[in-house]
């Protein structure tokens, strides 16, 4: 009886996992696009671009995501031109799209700071060497700056991705039945919040742990130069130690 209850709860919450992953994926994907734009604007050297990105980062990092979500979902529909726009209205009246927009805008602020830091952390000597080789600015960026910066940004980026997984739960407050929303519903139906929320919590934790493992693996693969050299006459381990 008890066991059945846990099993059915986990199963119902798991059925909402695809929706959570959908919000998560699109939030991150659009966020990455916006963040790339912001980083480019910041690094381009235009004063106006710098002021804009500074203001953007200040606003989106300084206020809670919940406020941003409410502002986008409830607030923007106050404008008549939003309600009459054939492009904006279908997006902004749908809570699902609103969550994705809010998450993307929010994560872009954090990610652009991560990327800015990573770009600045690229050793100057490497860039100078590339210049001395006569590489064009684009080749230099493609072959030297970008690969090093991406590797440097990875640990902070993985933290941001995990924060995004946690943020998908906010979709439940604007009526989306993703994992958190489903757990809420079961909890209200059965009045057993501790059991239900623990089941949902286990799923969220496993999800986040696997994301963390995945990033640890990517990091391991991308930093062979930091690992100690393999012993002589010894076969390489089939599975990296981080796993």
């Amino acid at each position, binding site marked *: 009886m008890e066991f059945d209850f846990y099993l059915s709860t986990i199963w119902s919450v798991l059925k909402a996992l695809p929706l959570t992953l959908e919000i998560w994926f699109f939030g991150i994907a659009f966020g990455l696009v916006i963040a790339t734009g912001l980083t480019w604007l910041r690094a381009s050297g235009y004063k106006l671009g710098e002021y804009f990105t500074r203001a953007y980062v200040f606003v989106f990092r300084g206020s809670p995501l919940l406020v941003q979500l409410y502002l986008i979902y409830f607030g923007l529909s106050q404008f008549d031109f939003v309600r009459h726009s054939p492009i904006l209205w279908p997006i902004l009246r749908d809570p699902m799209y609103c969550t994705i927009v809010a998450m993307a805008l929010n994560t872009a602020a954090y990610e652009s700071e991560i990327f800015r830091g990573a770009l600045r952390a690229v050793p100057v000597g490497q860039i100078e060497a590339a210049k001395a080789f006569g590489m064009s600015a684009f080749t230099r960026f493609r072959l030297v700056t970008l690969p090093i910066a991406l590797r440097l940004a990875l640990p902070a980026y993985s933290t941001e991705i995990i924060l995004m997984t946690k943020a998908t739960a906010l979709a439940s407050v604007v009526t989306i039945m993703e994992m958190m929303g489903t757990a809420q519903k079961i909890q209200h139906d059965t009045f057993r919040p501790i059991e239900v*929320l623990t089941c949902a919590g286990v799923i969220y934790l496993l999800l986040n742990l696997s994301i963390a493992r995945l990033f640890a693996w990517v990091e391991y693969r991308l930093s062979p130069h930091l690992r100690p050299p393999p012993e002589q006459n010894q076969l390489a381990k089939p599975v990296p130690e981080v796993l």
Partner: protein
Amino acid sequence: MEFLNDLKDQASTAYELLAAGWGVQLLWGIAWTLAVTVVSMLIGATLGSLVAAAKLSHRGGLRFIGESYTTVFRGEPELLIIYLFYYGGTQVLTGVARSTGSIGSTDILNMPSFLGGVLAVGIISGAYQAEVFRGSFLAIHRGELEAARAYGMSAWLRFRLVIMPQVLRLAVPGLGNVWQLTIKDSALISVTGVAELMLTANKAARSTHHSLLFYTLAGILYLVMTSISTPIFDRAERYTSRSFTRPK
């Protein structure tokens, strides 16, 4: 043009609405948000230092508990933890009260929403603070601890005279970050019905149908709170590291 007209309308009604009493309500909201944040930070500091000590312990069991605490409470959605403490607390309280017969078998004893929210946010904050304290402890020079031991200081004396002053100094920037996180997390406890800034803005938006106005105001007020705390923590950092800077 339509956009500008809309904006003008909003601005003219904004003053009326705020003067009609919502302004005072929002100020109370700020007070509650700050109260929630401060109490949560204190709960978090207590738990965080204990968990940091556990994570640095030589005993495997304690280390495991510390690791699990920080993994779980940093890996779960904040909303889930808040629901767990609020609704879970109600479940436990009701169960206990029903079994002792202090309420009828169909009555429900609700978790006080402030207590539930503060516990949840405090425990999340504690997970982040534990990492801050652990990092600060690891930044203390080993030689100083060895020197203190060589002087024959007891563990308590070492903690009081060598470890704690330095951990506090090194932890200030990290605690500033956690403070900002906690302010933002405190907005989530509006779901349990604590009348802090977010819930006040919500109520105002629903009852006046001016959601844009009130959510923008709430956003601005959160920005003010987070940006005011930056110079305060900078000051605290200067104060705590005053013995490490050259006098002018």
